[in-house]
Structures are given as C-alpha cells and as structure tokens.
C-alpha cells in the first residue's frame, strides 16, 4: 500500500489549515494561512502550499476531508466532516489517552468528549456570543493596542487581574474601555480577560465532564498565560500539541484515511 496519501483541509473563520499524512499516519506537511474573505481560495492556496512542502502532486492524494466553517466551499474535497469530529480524531492520534478535547477556535470554542478510538461521544459549544473564543482575544488585543503575540506572553498568574465580569464581547469591550479610562495597567486587563475566557471554558468543561487526559487545540493554545490559568482552574496538566492549530486538519486527514480503509474492507467482503 505504498504511495497513498491523505489530507485534511480545515477552513476556519480566522485561519485555513492543511495537513497531509501518508497511509501509516505519518505527518508529511502542515500549513496554516489566514482565511481572509474567500474560503475556497484560501483552501486552494493552503492545499497547494502543503503539497509543495510534502513534495507531492494533487493526483497522489487519495482522500481529502474538508472541515471547518468553510467545509462546503472546498471543491476538491472527497468528503466533509465537522470540525468537532475532526478535532476529536486529531487529538486522539496525537495523544491516544485523550478523553476530552478543548478547542478554542476563532469563532467558537468547544469541549469534545471522545472514546478510546477517538470517536466523539458528546460535545458542547459556546453560545452565540463570541466571548471565550479567538475572536474575542483579537478584538481585545485591538482595543488594548497589543498584537496577539504580546497578548499571549506568559504572565505571572499570581499577579492582579482587573475584574472583567461581562460575558459578552461587546460589553466586555466597553468594560475594557472604562478600565483603560481609569488607567488600569494593561497587564491587569490582559490578565482579567484571560481569566474571563478561562471561566467560560471552565463552565463548558464542567457541563460535559472530564474523561481521561485533556488536550487543548486551536490557536489559543499558544497563549501561555491562558494555558497556565486554565490548568490551574481545572487542576490538571493539559496536552498541548506542537501545532495546536492543525489538529482539526490532521483529524480530517485521518478520517479520509479511515474512510479509504473502510471502503477496502467493504470491497473485500
């Protein structure tokens, strides 16, 4: 079964991620680019870049799973699956003892419970409001005149934090404005924001319960201060993938691989 390759294309609201694996599940290339305004173009672009990096041609890819918000716009995909299943499968392949996946994505955050085979058992997503998502951090970074990297710098978690009580992005933003007007140090505001996100995530986690190891995926996993706060609140150590943003794409690639294998088995019956 040489020369079989599979790919997952995750078109998210903020970034488009592609992962290519071989038939044994080995990762050959991973790409993250901003989605911009056109999801299908971003998918095309990211996919080509991933092919190039893996030194493969388009014909050599046997199965491609599209996932993420823009999954319907990926014309070249052979199948589509929600990012919820994909994150479950991706996290399972990276950390096989994972029972719970926390994904903090651009537009939404979710907590996914999976079984020992990486199949989703249950999930919950944040409500309509974007607080507790990547988008929330982006809006706030703008407001604080910080870039996302600065916002993500590890902070002393014992430090003071300004109280941000609103659970809605719009209100939280106005709270930040009034804190700035009161000359509250930015560090404290950042700290308060992280705490408010962690509280949101925590209540989602408790609503679904923790099983097995917990893996954190999505770009927000780069935010060291937030990770530390979340670990403190949950009272455990999180599995953090090397590339937390491409876990969905990786899961997609594995689903494409599994679909192909299932079809072989079906044929042989």
């Amino acid at each position, binding site marked *: 079964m040489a020369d079989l390759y599979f790919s997952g294309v995750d078109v998210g609201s903020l970034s488009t991620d592609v992962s290519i694996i071989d038939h044994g599940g080995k990762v050959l290339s991973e790409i993250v680019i901003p989605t911009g305004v056109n999801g299908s173009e971003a998918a095309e672009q990211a996919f080509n870049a991933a092919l190039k990096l893996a030194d493969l041609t388009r014909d050599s890819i046997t199965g491609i799973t599209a996932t993420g*918000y823009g999954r319907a716009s990926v014309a070249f995909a052979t199948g589509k*699956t*929600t*990012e*919820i*299943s994909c994150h479950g499968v991706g996290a399972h392949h990276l950390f096989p003892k994972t029972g719970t996946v926390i994904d903090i994505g651009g*537009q*939404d955050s979710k907590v996914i419970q999976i079984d020992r085979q990486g*199949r*989703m*058992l*249950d*999930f919950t*997503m944040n*409500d*309509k409001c974007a607080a507790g998502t990547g988008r929330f951090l982006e809006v706030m970074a703008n407001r604080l005149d910080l870039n996302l990297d600065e916002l993500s710098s590890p902070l002393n978690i014992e430090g003071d934090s300004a109280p941000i009580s609103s659970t809605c992005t719009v209100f939280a933003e106005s709270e930040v404005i009034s804190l700035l007007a009161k000359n509250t140090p930015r560090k404290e505001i950042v700290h308060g924001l992280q705490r408010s996100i962690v509280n949101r995530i925590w209540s989602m986690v408790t609503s679904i319960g923790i099983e097995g190891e917990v893996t954190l995926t999505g770009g927000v996993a780069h935010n060291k201060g937030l990770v530390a706060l979340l670990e403190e609140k949950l009272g455990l150590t999180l599995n953090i993938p090397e590339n937390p943003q491409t876990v969905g794409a990786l899961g997609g690639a594995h689903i494409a691989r599994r679909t192909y294998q299932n079809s072989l088995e079906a044929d042989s019956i």
Partner: protein
Amino acid sequence: MLRFSKHEITINEIIKNMNIPDRSEYLKGLAQTGQKIMGVLPALYPRELLWAFDIHAAEIWDPPGEILHANAHLQTTICPVVKKSLEFILKEPQTINAGYLFPHTCDSLQNLGTQVKDLIGVSLPIYTFYNPKGRFNNTTIKYYQDILINFQSILEASHGPLEPEKLKAACVLSHKIDTYLMVIQQARMTDHLSLSNHEYFTLMRAQEYLLPQDYLSLLEQVNILEKPAEFSRARLMVSGILPPLPEILVFLDELGVSIVADDLLAVSRRIPKFAMDPPGSPLDYLTDRFFVLPPCSTRGGDLDERVHYLSNRLKESKAHGLLFDMVKFCEPELFDHRLLVKTFRERKTPVLTLETELEDHISGQDKTRIEAFTERLFEIVST
C-alpha cells in the same frame, strides 16, 4: 378511520394533495366570511368552549416578521414568542376580530396579557384563562371546573347564551381530532407515515389555524402505510416549545435524520397521553382532557413524571437521540432542561441542545452542531 394506502406517495404530493392553505391567507378568507376569530396565545386553553360559541381560535406562536414595535414595550431579555406575539397584536390585524385570549402559561405571558389589556390597550377584548399549576388532586379538579364555568359565563356576556348541544358537538369534534392525531403520532413512531420532517410538522401545526372541521378532513386524508417504510435513517426525538425552524427540518431531512417523536408544547404536549372515552358530560370531558395531557414544564408538573414520559417515548419511537430546541429566555423549559439533559446523558442517549430566538435562518454554528450530532447518530446506527 384513516385511509390506509398500499402505495407510498411522494411527500410533496401529499402536501399538495392535502392542500394545506397558507396561514394568513386562510384566516383572511375566513374573516371575510364574517367568521368570529379570536387570537389565542400559547398554550393550553379549552378550545371546545370557543368553538361552542362559534369562535374560531387562531393561535399565535411565532408570527413571521421582524420584532420592531414590541421592543418599545418589552426588555431585550424577554422570550421571542412573547415579543413576536406582541408585535403581531400591535399591528391590529384585521383577521382577529373577536379579541385575544391569554392562557396562563408563564410569567412573561401572564404579564403580557395585563400589559396589553391595562396599559397598551387594544380595540378588542382581552380574555385570560388560568391553568392550575403543580401537582393535581381533587381540589385542583374542582377548581378547574370552576374556571371552565367562569370562562363560559364571561364568553356568554359578549356572545350570548351557550347552546349545550353545540358544546357537546365541539367536544365530539375535539375527541375525533385527538384520536386521529394519536394514530398519526403512532404511525410516525413506527414508520407508517411517509412524510418528511418538514411536512409532518406542517401538518401538525395546521391545527393552530384551521377550522376544526377543515383540520379534521385534512387528517382524514393522511395516508397511513400498511407496512412500515424501510428506514435506515437516524431517528430523533425533539423536545421544546415549537418544532425546529423549517430550515432545520429541511436540513435534517437532507442529512437523513427523521424526527419520529416529539415532546413539544405546541404539538404533543397538547395531545392526550392516552385515548379518552368519547365525551359524555362536556364539563367532565374538558376537565379530564386537561388532566391527561403529557407532563409539561409550564404546568409545573413533577420532574420524575416528565423523565419517565420522555424515556417511554424514546423507547417507543426507537429514537437514537434527543434534540432540545430551546427558545431563548424560556424559564419553564430551561429549568427542566438541566435534569433532562443530565439524565439522558447518563443513559448514554446522544443529546443536542439548540437555542433559538425564532430567527428566519439558522447560523453556521448551529449547522455545525447539527451535523456533528448527526455524525454521532450515524455512528450509533452503524453499530
């Protein structure tokens, strides 16, 4: 009884054949004939009494259109059913000519009734009807009869004396409709009905505005299959206030998910739990009917009873999962929701909760939720 057909007719044909008229067109037509029409808010009320006075009950649950004027009267944290109802009332639609009835369902509707009557003021009379709450016993039954009698005399004051024969006939009609609906529910659960999700709920919701005779003849046309249709699709039970938005129903159809049973306030919670004897004394019949309705959050019923009822329905319908379609800010439902979700999760029944503000379209996020949930259901179907 219902006609049984050996042939599966395509679903669109059924709706076309049934010729279910559009809600507002139908009511407009009726009003033009001089029919008395009363706008009725959710949810439980003695429709038979209204029919006996030749008053048609046109129910107001989720009238279409943007919420605009109602925002000047209600806070942002009030449920969309209440807001949309008020928006409708403020338009003073011509079709409603005999007043509005506010059954006592929840705090918000309770207040809306007096707000419209005592503060906003409309040109039509406002009626109210109290539904007893909590656990029921002989004291409750006695009181419910008193309420019925009071309501009757209130209607008599503006519509003339009640003709007992008419009330009797209304009860007979109501009993017939219930009987048909129970057969159809059963057929749905056992795959003896070849209607899409959307068509099924269009049929169920037509009772909100059709004259009872018209609704009855519609039900008579429903084809109950002799043998169950072959279904390998995922089966779903839905709970909440209203059926999911049409767009969701169609989406579920596309995904291959069939809603086989429901615990909706607008649908099954208004159909008796079990077959009732044909009406003898109207007063007793109406009283009995109220007390044999399925357990409901808005009546403040017992939680164990509700869990028990839902599990039975799930078992009977062989549903693979349970969808809670929650109306935003609906307190009675949201309180019960926590225990129901917990219980069924523990029993490993897949559960999905959606929250709706009765928008016209579903969000991308909800689509993802539904699709992910469906992926899970199909995992179960395939194993």
